[in-house]
């Protein structure tokens, strides 16, 4: 080999102008690549063109229109539950917004409950207590091996629809009422001067963040720890409370009360919403529990032992050594579970909760007949959420990757 390298005479020279033969041309990688891509392009574009031309013909025959002009037209139907104000005469575009708001509401509340429940179940799955471990395992196995839609429908028809009539409502501490028309909470009504409390809350959150950053820097520089979590929590709780009391408690509560056949006042959610939240958070919590377990188990036991050998307290081992490493494994699948939860909230249609798919892709589509813009807008919303979140997730992944060796 060493004879070949180095000596100029042994360098293999290509012929100056290779004769262009058909075989060489056909077998050339670039030529083939261009050819395959051209074929694929023609097929895909041809297919799309075929579908589009059929659609145009069919729509012309049925007198359908694909424009977005219907968005300003009054939708003329009522929606059982709306987070943002909506009246019967509002436009279709308002219906779209109402649907998005309801979907996001379900997604956010569901994600919060699913995370708490999932964390508890994931830790229970790792418990040293055999009974707790086994119970958690079967909780997860049973709930994630049955269809979500079945669970939603079962919660709705089997539990929330069978609740007593408003007159015999279940009273939860005199604050919350449950009956077969929904759940009723007292609604806060801000009086004059409440803005001050909100301002204090914002200031307290900012202060807590600054405190946390300072504590972290001090820990890194001097090794002296400061309970920034506890102090921050106290700040966030106490400062607004003090301001609130000092400004004369400017907040009234609108209490739900039984008048006639139903509750009036307060804030209420329909039974379908309760069923959806309960089913979604329980179902998603099983997957989150497995993610938490896998994340914690992915940190090798040597890390714990090393921390013990260095004299780090067990509570700090978890916080400063295990969790930061586990988080890397946990965060990406956790986010994708939140996305799944958002997508799964579309099953609301089966129990009549007015989410985006239900009010927009079902009711509005049937009423206006504008299949194409409506389908496109619905898919566009889900795509935007999904792609937006994965973009942020990719940024996060890149950030934690940089810290590796």
């Amino acid at each position, binding site marked *: 080999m060493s004879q070949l390298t180095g000596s100029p005479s042994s360098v293999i020279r290509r012929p100056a102008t290779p004769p262009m033969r058909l075989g060489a041309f056909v077998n050339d990688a670039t030529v083939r690549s261009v050819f395959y891509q051209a074929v694929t392009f023609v097929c895909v574009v041809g297919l799309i063109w075929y579908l589009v031309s*059929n659609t145009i013909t069919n729509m012309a025959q049925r007198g359908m229109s694909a424009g977005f002009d219907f968005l300003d037209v009054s939708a003329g139907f009522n929606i059982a539950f709306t987070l943002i104000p909506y009246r019967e005469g509002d436009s279709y575009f308002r219906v779209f917004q109402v649907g998005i708001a309801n979907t996001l509401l379900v997604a956010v509340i569901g994600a919060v409950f699913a995370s708490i429940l999932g964390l508890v179940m994931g830790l229970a799955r790792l418990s040293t207590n055999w009974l707790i471990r086994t119970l958690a395992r079967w909780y997860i196995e049973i709930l994630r*091996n049955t269809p979500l839609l079945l669970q939603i429908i*079962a919660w709705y028809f089997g539990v929330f629809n069978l609740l007593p009539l408003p007159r015999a409502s279940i009273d939860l501490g005199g604050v919350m009422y449950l009956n077969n028309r929904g759940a009723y909470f007292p609604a806060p009504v801000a009086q004059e001067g409440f803005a001050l409390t909100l301002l204090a809350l914002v200031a307290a959150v900012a202060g807590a963040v600054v405190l946390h950053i300072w504590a972290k820097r001090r820990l890194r520089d001097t090794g002296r720890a400061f309970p920034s979590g506890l102090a921050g929590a106290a700040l966030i709780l106490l400062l607004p409370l003090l301001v609130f009391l000092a400004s004369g408690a400017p907040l009234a509560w609108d209490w739900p009360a039984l008048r006639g056949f139903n509750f009036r006042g307060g804030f209420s959610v329909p039974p379908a919403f309760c069923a959806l939240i309960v089913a979604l958070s329980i179902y998603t919590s099983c997957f989150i529990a497995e993610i938490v377990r896998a994340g914690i188990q992915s940190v090798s036991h040597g890390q714990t032992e090393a921390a013990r050998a260095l004299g780090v307290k067990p509570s700090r081992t978890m916080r400063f050594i295990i969790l930061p490493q586990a988080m890397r494994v946990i965060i990406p699948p956790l986010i994708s579970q939140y996305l799944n939860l958002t997508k799964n909230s*579309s*099953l609301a*249609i089966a129990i009549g909760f007015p989410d985006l798919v239900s009010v927009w892709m079902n009711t509005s589509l049937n009423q206006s007949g504008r*299949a194409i813009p409506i*389908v496109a807008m619905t898919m566009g919303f889900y795509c935007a959420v*999904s792609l937006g979140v994965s973009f942020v997730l990719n940024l996060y992944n890149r950030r934690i990757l940089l810290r590796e060796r």
Partner: protein
Amino acid sequence: MSDAPLVFTPRPADPPPPSTIGVVGWMRANLFSSLPNAILTFLGGYIFYVVVTTIIDWALVKAVWEAENRRQCLDLVGRSGACWPGVVEWIPNLIYGLYPKDQVWRINIGFLILLAWAVPLWLPRVKSKVAIGLSLVLLYPLLASYFFHGGAQGVVWTALIALGGAAFLWVWLTTLAEMRFGLGFGALVARLAGAADDERARRIGWGALAALYVLALLVVSQLRFVEVPTRVWGGLFLTLVISGIGIAFSLPAGVLLALGRRSQMPLIRVFCVTFIELFRSVPLITILFMFNTMLPLFLPAGVEVNRLLRAIVAVCLFASAYMAEIVRGGLQAIPKGQYEAAAAMGLGFWQSTSLIILPQALRIMIPSIVGNFIGLFKDTTLVSIIGLFDLLSMSRAVGEDTRWLGLFIEPFFFITMIYFVFCFLMSQYSLNLERRLGEGQRR
């Protein structure tokens, strides 16, 4: 002092303290290792006790097993016990939907054939497992449509169904031949016919296959079943049909999409990425709705696509996008050296992919693939929203029957158990498979 040598006899070891062995020891270590743990144990035990006794009480102890209608159940035990007669009466419908009672045997035969087709995959001495598996995925659906749908078929369709029948005959003949003689069916026939050389043996083997095909063609063209339109398909049967087709379609489609996504050709990559990301970022129900309302618009006027087919198209596309991401994960896990070694051996793209890369990648992917299948099986419940009578819809229909009005929880409980058994067995099988396949990799 005696002269006897001093012998060292060790005192027998003390038995371990009784609190560390046996049931007591196990309980101390696993249930009551500390005070918080003991409290947790009692709390967990209490919850377990309450849940289990409630369920047993409702489902078995207080349950009604014989009644004419729901009113009788309610009169007997109220809501405190399950009312099973309604579910028992509806079991045939829950399983077969509204399929005509006198034709139900066709479904049973169809699924028995499926089982029989799959059994050789687990028999140890069968060598042609790849061919059997491929024929199962590609040709069994033809035979299944013959049994499940029936009706008069055209010439082409009859020829295709006969292909399915011939494949089934070949699978079992070759399985028996390989188990008994260690030779494939064709080779065995050639041996029996006393073929002089390889060329003749091959020709005789093909002749035997052709004979099988002619036999199947004769049977299929003579034996015709009454047509059962897909409108009346339902229950567990429909659930299995949709998820089965979804699974069979999504695996090859997912492989192709994943290869396309990793391709060096930008145009193909863009198409594949767009397809995968689009279908993965929207909920299945929107795709089902889209196909339900828009497939008739997409196709030329006059082409009728029935509801089942629309749902199946949607499920297949959705499942292949998810499968593509799983396959991509598997492909990424193969070290680059494997690709380079394959290229160095002079293997082309398709050869290296199918002989070197995919066999290794598929093994890594098995747990995720099975997980995807479980997800697909559960997701088929969504077709009930667009008006197909799958297992979930049928179970809701029980409570809408005039005699069993309002009977919802019992059928839900019943089908929950069906879904759970299917999904749980699949996941346990995948764990088992993973353990066995990983044996060679473990250090």
